[in-house]
């Protein structure tokens, strides 16, 4: 994988749709205190599957949705998409689609729903996405999206298809990415590897093995 793009809307202080393109070199993120740099790191940690609000510096998951300023109302959805480049294996597993569809929360993974008709459970109401997504899917790219609504519901999507958290975690198995990954060092936590328990250090090496 190579990281190509991050897009966020309604996530913490990023009220408007914001897009960061990455090249192959190192990128610096700079700005005054409190402007939103660490919020970007939280967004990437969240879309990779982070489940604990505490690890995202909040009390509840709703703290992740833009909660307004003096001049702007709070929004009702937070969405983050990660576009990764991977010319190899992924093509076969997730056929690329042109338009993302909103699928009832809790459905099975994209690969399964592409093959067989899904059983509609009681109470499934399709939730229309808040904003028409401008994501485009190209060959060799994979786009992972996570949405959270004020109601507490959250959706995961791979290339526009609803999927489960497990599907996203499977994608990143063995690459060191994923929630609590050693590849994401949050602010003030660089010394944590040293003060953690010896058994925690072992699990970091096991993950890399």
């Amino acid at each position, binding site marked *: *994988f*190579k*990281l190509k793009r991050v897009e966020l809307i309604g996530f*913490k*202080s*990023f009220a*408007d749709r*914001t*897009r*960061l*393109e*990455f*090249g192959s*070199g*190192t*990128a*610096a*993120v*700079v*700005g*005054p205190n*409190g*402007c*939103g*740099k*660490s*919020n*970007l*790191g939280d967004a*990437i940690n969240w879309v990779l599957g982070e489940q604990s609000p505490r690890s995202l510096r909040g009390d509840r998951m709703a703290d992740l949705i833009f909660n307004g*300023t*003096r*001049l*702007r109302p709070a929004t009702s959805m937070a969405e983050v998409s990660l576009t*990764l480049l991977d010319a190899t294996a992924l093509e076969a597993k997730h056929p690329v689609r042109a338009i993302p569809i909103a699928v009832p929360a809790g459905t099975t993974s994209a690969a399964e729903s592409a093959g067989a008709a899904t059983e509609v459970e009681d109470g499934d109401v399709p939730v229309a996405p808040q904003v028409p997504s401008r994501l485009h899917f190209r060959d060799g790219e994979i786009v992972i999206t996570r949405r959270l609504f004020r109601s507490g519901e959250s959706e995961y999507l791979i290339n526009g298809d609803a999927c489960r958290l497990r599907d996203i975690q499977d994608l990143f198995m*063995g*690459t*060191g*990415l994923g929630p609590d*990954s*050693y*590849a*994401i*060092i949050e602010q*003030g936590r*660089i*010394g*944590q*590897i*040293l*003060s953690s*328990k*010896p*058994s925690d*250090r*072992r699990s970091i*090496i*096991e993950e*890399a*093995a």
Partner: protein
Amino acid sequence: SRRQFLEAFQAINANFAETFRTLFGGGVGAMRLSDESDPESGIDLVAQPPGKRLQNVLLLSGGEKALVALALLIAIFRYTPSPFCILDEVDAPLDDSNVERFTRMIRAMSQTTQFILMTHNKRTMEICPLMYGVTMEEPGVSKLVSVRFETPQDADELPAAASF
């Protein structure tokens, strides 16, 4: 499996000894199994900055702890390259000469791993071909100003809007 773990442990340990020497300009860094006879044993870290006695890592200074952690992280990356790595102000506790060694290491690793560095340190900004400025011109709402410059000296010509 146990064999896979031991293989990873030994390879990463060899990397760690090297990255420790590079970041500290000498000295010894190593991982040790807390209990050799226990297949599920935890891992202890030993660090000996150049000229000092071998000590418990807790006694190290703030800057030294950051360097040991970075050396271990890079040692793991050399074994299992991760697609990207986010480091949020890890250069904050470092003095000028250690920032120099840190940025040299990142530059060397950037062939295989993509780094995203949140920083306030101008020396760290200088090694980044791409720079995103985050501003809150509208209070409470983050906006991005992107500046891409190929060579670091362009940094001085940053548009005033993005100067921090």
